[in-house]
């Protein structure tokens, strides 16, 4: 019998992370550096606020775009923290994770066949999300020797008449690379020259360790061509709450709200109340988690270099992306053999784009004991191979 599944979905490649998840989850006592989420539990005051909202009987739908109080807080937060100015009434939408914000942003702007530049290595969802929205992802492979930083001339090289938008993620998943304000400005000049739209995924913005963070949305003259995407998953340790947001030009936010209204209605109400508390009183918790990530990052990067896998010091997020070239293994082989022999899960770099080959992604959102143990096992593993 022929399959009822649509051609578009049949042709969509399954995520390489999924394959690895299936492999790892069949095994017991795995030490995991394969997770893209905080190891902290959501700050207690946020959980409490959500309980309280349920007790108060706030169990109904909210406005489609989200609680106005929450949009006001998001707008205040973006202004105070990142100098990105958006009106809560019509330039902000609360979504089901940054994931949904990415989806509806792409669906709101793409016409069939429009090209979207995806800067790789990239978060695994970008290219498929572009395809699902009827667009064509054009992969732009940054150079490991440039610390995977996007260069304006590289961008100019992949732009065609069909290019409509570009997706930028700083700090980046999986490399942790952060783009400085000057680097962003240089990129924005190309973007203006070719009249492109930018989806700036700033979900790791709070988690930058060495330099002041610059939001793309705060650059001069780019506001009308920028959709800022963020959420509560990473900085506030709220992955399971499924809450994010987008801020951007009024017409695009209205278009996104239209899709959102017909598909989701609104983000979960109790999660929105939790998020409200996170923005109002969560600063200290974020700072504490951030301090701990920074210490672990230093530990992990130094140890990787000591044991013989060269590893740059990333400026943000909670991933390191060491090179495994020395071992002569592909990233798939490395990750699979490491999992089988030492029961340590890492993610092969090639799942984030072909220039991720020769690297593995390790998350340091894990306890120091776990990181220490995992690194000792990795040392043993590569000892047999280098």
């Amino acid at each position, binding site marked *: 019998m022929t399959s009822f599944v649509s051609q578009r979905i049949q042709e969509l490649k399954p995520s390489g*992370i999924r394959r690895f998840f299936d492999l*790892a989850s069949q095994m017991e006592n795995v030490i995991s550096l394969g*997770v*893209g989420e905080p*190891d902290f539990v959501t700050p207690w005051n946020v959980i409490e606020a959500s309980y309280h909202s349920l007790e108060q009987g706030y169990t109904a739908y909210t406005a489609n775009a989200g609680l106005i109080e929450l949009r006001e807080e998001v707008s205040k937060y973006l202004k105070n923290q990142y100098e990105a100015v958006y009106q809560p009434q019509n330039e902000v939408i609360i979504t089901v994770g940054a994931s949904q914000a990415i989806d509806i942003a792409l669906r709101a702007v793409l016409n069939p066949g429009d090209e979207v530049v995806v800067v790789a290595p990239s978060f*695994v969802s970008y290219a498929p999300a572009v395809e699902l929205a009827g667009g064509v992802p054009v992969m732009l492979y940054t150079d490991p020797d440039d610390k995977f930083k996007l260069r304006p001339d590289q961008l100019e090289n992949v732009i065609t008449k069909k290019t409509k938008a570009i997706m930028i993620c700083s700090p980046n998943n999986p490399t942790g690379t952060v783009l400085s304000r000057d680097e962003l400005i240089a990129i924005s000049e190309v973007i203006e020259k070719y009249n492109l739209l930018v989806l700036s995924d700033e979900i790791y913005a709070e988690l930058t360790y060495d330099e002041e963070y610059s939001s793309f949305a705060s650059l001069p003259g780019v506001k009308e061509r920028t959709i800022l995407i963020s959420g509560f998953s990473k900085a506030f340790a709220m992955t399971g709450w499924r809450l994010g947001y987008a801020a951007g030009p009024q017409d695009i936010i209205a278009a996104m709200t239209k899709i959102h209204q017909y598909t989701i209605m609104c983000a979960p109400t109790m999660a929105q109340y939790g998020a409200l508390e996170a923005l109002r009183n969560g600063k200290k918790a974020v700072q504490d988690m951030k301090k701990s990530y920074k*210490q672990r990052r*230093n530990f992990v990067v130094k140890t990787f270099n000591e044991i013989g896998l060269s590893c740059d010091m990333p400026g943000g997020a909670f991933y390191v992306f060491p090179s495994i070239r020395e071992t002569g293994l592909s990233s798939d082989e490395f990750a699979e053999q490491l999992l089988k022999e030492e029961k340590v899960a890492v993610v092969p770099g090639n799942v984030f784009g072909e220039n991720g080959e020769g690297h593995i992604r390790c998350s340091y959102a894990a306890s120091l004991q776990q990181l220490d143990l995992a690194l000792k096992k990795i040392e043993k593993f590569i000892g047999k191979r280098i």
Partner: protein
Amino acid sequence: MEKIEVELLSLIENNSNLEIEKIAKMIDRSEEETRELIRKLEEEKAILGYSAVIDWSKVHNYEGVTAMIDVKVQPARGVGFDKVAERIYRFPEVKAVYLMSGAYDLSVSIEARTMLEIGKFVSEKLSVLDSVLSTTTHFVLKKYKHDGIIFDNDNDDKRIVVSP
């Protein structure tokens, strides 16, 4: 105190067992420098000791009772509460003594093997001190959290093994 020293202190406050080598990497200093920082902090008595938080209820056959005693005292001329506090904290069974604001003056935490022993301490050693006016003894029934550490915590990682 420098920022790096505060960072170091909070690291070892959470785990005094941390190896120098690890601390050094985490605070981005050499092992030499880290050792020197710790020595200096010990000398300044910012670090007073290194201890472990033990859940004694896990120890088989271990019998122990903790009590918190509220003590009202008559402060002595010239030395206020300090002298009487010293007379109390010098008893080896006393684990902590704090000067409090409010309904009583000193909070004394004491550990002993049995309730009887605590009773004896209160009646024979504490209440008989000249400046002690009254005592109220509270027994601890169960420890949930001590020194910032949650007992019997379900610390299992709830995350799936690989995620985006």
